[in-house]
């Protein structure tokens, strides 16, 4: 009994170290999305470029990325070249979030427009239904419109190979 008691503090210490060690590699800003496994919420919004009315049924019928961005968002500019490159590989649908038409159009003109379609959501209504907390956020959606992954923050080569690609292979 007493022998055991001597080792107890060390045991407790080891368990704590285990928890803290795990904590080191967790990003507290990363939250699980409530919409994983759910279809993209229904919406009726216009296309920023064409003015055409868009709905959920008009989304691509193959796996695609839904990228939430805005002209006021700095990180969106940072990830834009990478998304442009990705758009050669799979459709990237834009969700222009809480922006103004002129600012968004200027931004696309300056930096290029790789988007397959551009959902214009100035009120942020669709963003709210998607559980968007800020821009940029990117969702991986499958051919039937179900969300499989949410990336908060910049999409880059590391995020693509570690997160998007494995999930993409699973849903293809």
């Amino acid at each position, binding site marked *: 009994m007493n022998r055991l008691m001597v080792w107890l503090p060390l045991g407790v210490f080891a368990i704590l170290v285990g928890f803290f060690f795990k904590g080191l590699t967790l990003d507290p*800003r990363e*939250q699980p999305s*409530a919409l994983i496994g759910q279809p993209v919420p229904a919406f009726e919004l216009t296309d920023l470029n064409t003015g055409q009315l868009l709905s959920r049924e008009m989304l691509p019928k193959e796996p695609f990325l839904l990228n939430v961005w805005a002209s006021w968002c700095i990180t969106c500019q940072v990830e834009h070249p990478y998304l442009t490159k990705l758009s050669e590989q799979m459709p990237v649908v834009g969700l222009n979030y809480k922006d103004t038409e002129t600012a968004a159009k200027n931004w696309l003109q300056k930096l290029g427009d790789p988007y397959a379609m551009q959902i214009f959501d100035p009120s*942020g209504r669709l963003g*709210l*239904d998607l*559980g*968007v*907390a*800020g821009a940029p956020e990117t969702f991986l959606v499958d051919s039937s419109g179900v969300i499989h992954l949410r990336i908060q923050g910049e999409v880059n080569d590391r995020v693509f190979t570690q997160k998007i690609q494995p999930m993409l292979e699973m849903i293809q």
Partner: protein
Amino acid sequence: MIKTILVAFALAASMSVHAAIETYQFDSPEQEARFRQLGYELRCPKCQNQAIGDSDAEISGDLRAEVYRMLKEGATDAEIKDFMVARYGRYVLYSPPLDKQTLVLWFSPVGLFVLGGILVVLRIRQSKKALEEGESQA
């Protein structure tokens, strides 16, 4: 004269401060109280540890507006919370509901307390026994 100018400046300054504060009109004091309570119970999804009623983040403002809209439409507190959880996950609730996933969260403090109590009792018994043995030897 200088006093008048100072007062005018003070007034102007206070007015600009007021302009930055959101104004919501409520139907009743109860509704306003519920708005405040929900603002205190819902967590800002962008912040690390702040309630939406206490946060300047853009998203918190949007969620407050949403809470207000739903209150005005006559939604119950539970409906409003469900709405937020459906979009932002259980992270938005400061007080998570009791179910399988949160069992450990809810009961581990009690469990640890009981465990500590058992250890203390064992320890006391042990030292009592040792004391008695010591007395009987003397």
